[in-house]
């Protein structure tokens, strides 16, 4: 379970998160939607501690993410993160990309790490690309590689930050398919997305972000077909 309590975050003068309360239950898929600059990415990075916070609290399975004594590297193993830019490691093959963290972080043997990597690459449909380098893969394939790389740590949660926004339109589908697959397997996911059909079809709840506050949250049929917030109504009509 991921719990955000009265979470506040500023960049200098600019307050980006103005007291967010959100609980994500195990097995739940929550989509975050909202205008550019509303603080969606920042929220994700406060969960995996890529960003510090100024007030409030984030707990993952009861562990206070931003407490001094927290072993953040250990906690991050639970939190798979996929960025808009896939950041595949260009000097390593697909197999090595995925096997690296199990090797050096969880100290698996070379053989074990390779087995895990192969399993996850098959999982995301890259079973025939094990020995390819990122430069030999398309954007969609590299993003699936990034997903496999995160899954290899056997995370309990997956955080997606606009995982399909940097892709050519014809490559978006293959990545969304994998995300759908993970959701159907019961993975707990927080998904920042501009793909309204994905938010509608896959999420248990949709949260609308407006200038650092959670303006509206609920099941997609409620939030997306019967929005209350006028800004959300406008947002949905422009984007969808």
């Amino acid at each position, binding site marked *: 379970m991921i719990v955000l309590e009265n979470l506040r975050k500023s960049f200098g003068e600019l307050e980006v998160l103005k007291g967010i309360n959100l609980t994500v239950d195990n097995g739940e898929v929550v989509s975050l939607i909202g205008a550019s600059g509303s603080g969606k990415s920042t929220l994700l990075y406060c969960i*995996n501690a*890529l960003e510090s916070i100024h007030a409030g609290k984030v707990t993952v399975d009861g562990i206070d993410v931003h407490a001094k004594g927290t072993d953040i*590297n*250990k906690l*991050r*193993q639970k*939190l*798979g*993160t996929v*960025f808009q*830019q896939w*950041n595949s*490691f*260009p*000097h*390593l093959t697909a197999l090595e990309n995925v096997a*690296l*963290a199990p090797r*050096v*972080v*969880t100290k698996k043997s070379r053989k074990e790490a390779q087995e895990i990597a192969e399993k996850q690459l098959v999982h995301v449909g890259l079973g025939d690309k094990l020995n*390819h*380098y*990122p*430069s*030999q893969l398309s954007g969609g394939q590299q993003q699936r590689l*990034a997903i496999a*790389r*995160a899954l290899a*740590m056997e995370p309990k949660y997956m955080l997606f930050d606009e995982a399909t926004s940097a892709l050519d339109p014809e490559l978006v589908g293959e990545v969304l398919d994998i995300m759908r697959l993970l959701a159907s397997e019961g993975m707990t996911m927080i998904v920042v997305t501009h793909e309204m059909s994905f938010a509608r079809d896959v999420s248990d709840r949709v949260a609308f972000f407006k200038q650092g506050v959670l303006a509206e949250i609920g099941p997609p049929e409620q939030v997306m077909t019967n929005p209350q917030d006028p800004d959300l109504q406008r947002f949905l009509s422009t984007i969808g």
Partner: protein
Amino acid sequence: MDYQFHWRPVIQALPDLLKASLVTLEVSLIAMALGLMFGLVLYFCRASSLRLLRGFGSTWVEIARNTPSLFQIFVFYWGLGEFGIFLSSFTAVVAALTFNCAGYMAETYRGGFNAVPAGQDKAARTLGMTKLQSLRYVVLPQVLRAIYGPMTNQFTWVILASSLGMLAGLRELSGETQYFNSRTFRTFEFFAATAVIYYLIAKIALILMRLLGRPLFRAERARP
């Protein structure tokens, strides 16, 4: 021109010249290896948030890059004597060349690190890697790839610059050549032969660097 070439003294001295070449190689290798390490440390000093470290790094780099190498060798060989520190020719030359290499490499590393997108480290850290693991397995291999060309040039430069060591009394290849020259006065022959030896050493070093660097460039070779 009625100069008579006499190569016999050179041929007789060849074993000694080759032995001295090993000193040249030894000095260059040690200075280069240490320069690579200290250069990395200097890069981190200069990128540090601590002013003291930044100042230390910048001062080193500025002096190393903006004073003559010969002057640097003299400082280590004679200059330190003022402070009661007496280094052997070998140590002084290695130290001075290391000082110089580190300064140049610090600057080269900066370019290399800038060439690696910030997302690489971020991705590594979100997988649970520590700063050091991310550096070791993700960032540094890409930095090395980016600086490999300049690094190879630097190595060639050290080999050639180590000849300045003769002025601090080091019997490396140039020192040895000068020694034979002063005994036989076959100046042209000796320095011509030595130039050829330097050329060969530099070429062999270049080839070795290429071979050594091959694993770094696996991904480039795989390109369709």
